[in-house]
């Protein structure tokens, strides 16, 4: 299994370009309020450092923003978007809330489980490529059922579309692996 970490090979610190972005975010807020940048910087850290927030990553973010590590931990664990453990390369987050359920999100979840050979939501496929999660309403109720993967919303899902998605992401994974 190739873990995300190995694949992206990334650990703190940020690149110089990213550090400039962090500075720009901090400068949106008044003097002494640099903590306001925290959530955005955590999203960036997750993106750059293997798709999850290790203690090393969080401590690094704390030092960047000149705040206590515990201030980072308590925020990281409050918000559902942050992964506190390593995940597969791609995380499928299927919306499970009412409006999606009305048009078949349960079936989509079952279908993904079968296709990926996993038994429970939260698990990662044996090849380490996919993690299946569920989420609450993602603001796509009229285009349901749907799932989010990274920044992208995949909407109007059917079992056939899900099969295609899995294939597409597998191909993307192979490409990433080749580059490394």
């Amino acid at each position, binding site marked *: 299994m190739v873990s995300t970490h190995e694949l992206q090979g990334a650990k703190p610190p940020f690149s110089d370009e990213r550090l400039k972005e962090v500075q720009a975010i901090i400068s949106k807020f008044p003097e002494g309020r640099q903590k306001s940048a925290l959530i955005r910087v955590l999203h960036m850290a997750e993106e750059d450092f293997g798709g999850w927030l290790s203690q090393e990553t969080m401590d690094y973010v704390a030092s960047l923003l000149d705040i206590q590590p515990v201030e980072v931990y308590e925020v990281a664990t409050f918000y559902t978007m942050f992964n506190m453990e390593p995940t597969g390369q791609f995380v499928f987050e299927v919306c499970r809330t009412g409006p999606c359920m009305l048009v078949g999100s349960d079936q989509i979840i*079952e279908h993904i489980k079968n296709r990926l050979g996993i038994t429970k939501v939260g698990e990662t496929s044996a090849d380490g490529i996919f993690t299946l999660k569920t989420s609450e309403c993602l603001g796509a*109720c009229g285009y349901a059922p749907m799932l989010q993967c990274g*920044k992208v919303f995949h909407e109007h899902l059917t079992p056939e579309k899900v099969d295609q998605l899995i294939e597409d992401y597998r191909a993307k994974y192979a490409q990433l692996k080749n580059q490394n």
Partner: protein
Amino acid sequence: MGRKLLLEHIDVPGIETFEVYRREGGYRSVEKALKTMSPQEVVEEVQKSALKGRGGAGFPTGMKWSFLAKPEGIPRYLVCNADESEPGTFKDRYLMEKIPHLLIEGMITSSYALGANTSHIYIRGEYMFVLDILEKAIAEAYEKGFLGKNILGSGYDLDLYVSPGGGAYICGEETALLESLEGKRGNPRMKPPFPAVKGLFGCPTVVNNVESIAAVVPIINIGADEYLKIGTEKSSGTKLISASGNLVRPGVYEIELGLSVEEFIYGDEWCRGIANGKKIKACIPGGSSVPILPAHLITKTAAGETRYMSYESLSDGGFASGSMLGSGGFIVFDEDQCIVRNTWNFARFYAHESCGQCSPCREGTGWMEKVLYRLEHGQGNMRDIELLEQINKKIEGNTICPLGDAAAWPVAAAIRHFREEFEWHVTNPQEAQTRNYGLLKVTETL
């Protein structure tokens, strides 16, 4: 039928760019306000328009603005609530994604009215792709001189920023949002002090929904008198409705307030009826937090009068036989849907989203979820239905923020209108477990 004030130009190719948006008449409200009106006059115009907040509570926007404290030497903030997490609601995303400059224009005109020189848009983290769209549009607005220093030579300065959340429904509650924007956990604050006095960074702050801020644009453009002619006497203007569930054509629609519910569900121009030729069983007209209505109370009120899409008509009959317009998250259930299952689903949502600060909400939402799970899976008894009602009463009104009430009301309404279905789950445990009204059985346990 119906005038479009927000989505009029939505189908124009390239409307997401400054150039096309401007060509279609965009940014006129900024010119008009900054060049011909004083901030106070803008506030008065919005007050006169009777615009009600589009985020869910329906509080008059102009009145909220007039409450903003204005101590000398302390900055004031306008914060746009783009957290949009109320199940069934996706209109703000649609607006920001398709026509981002409308929100930016509204932010400039509104910030001018409030005397804010820095304003923030707080957007749910899951909408990161929308954040990218907004930042691109904001950069264009800076470049064209509509943001930054001395806008249009008026002497008015404004900086506008977007910040993402991290995934938490509670951050839609305005004080939780402010906490989150300050980089903290989204725990709602005790009120008072209200944000109008002590908001972002301890400074006077107005928090408004995306659609409320966008609506300021047409109000300034056509004037409050003209705006008042649209809609009904008590619900002025237009409203974005997010339609979802078992409809032929779900999606976001801009309606003139006062359109009949029947027309909206069945009309050709709107949702075109129930999918797969089925009949309607129930409807939640304003997002998951408002009471569910059974078939006979959707298009007609208890008194047999036509029900309209307006604040007053949807709430006609109070909680006994009415509901609320709320955020305009219009969720439709066909005849095969299981009310108990849906009630459980939403209870799970609220239990998941409770911030955990107050015990009645933290514990109560968890209990409700468990009891509803039992009932739905044929493991409940009749006392469970009473138990739900008791838990409800314990939560209602005993919490820091309204999430507790938002969790309790839908359960109470479901039991009120569909008690037999809850009882059926108790008397037919086998069938309740196997028959899922067309839905797959959930294989996972709690």
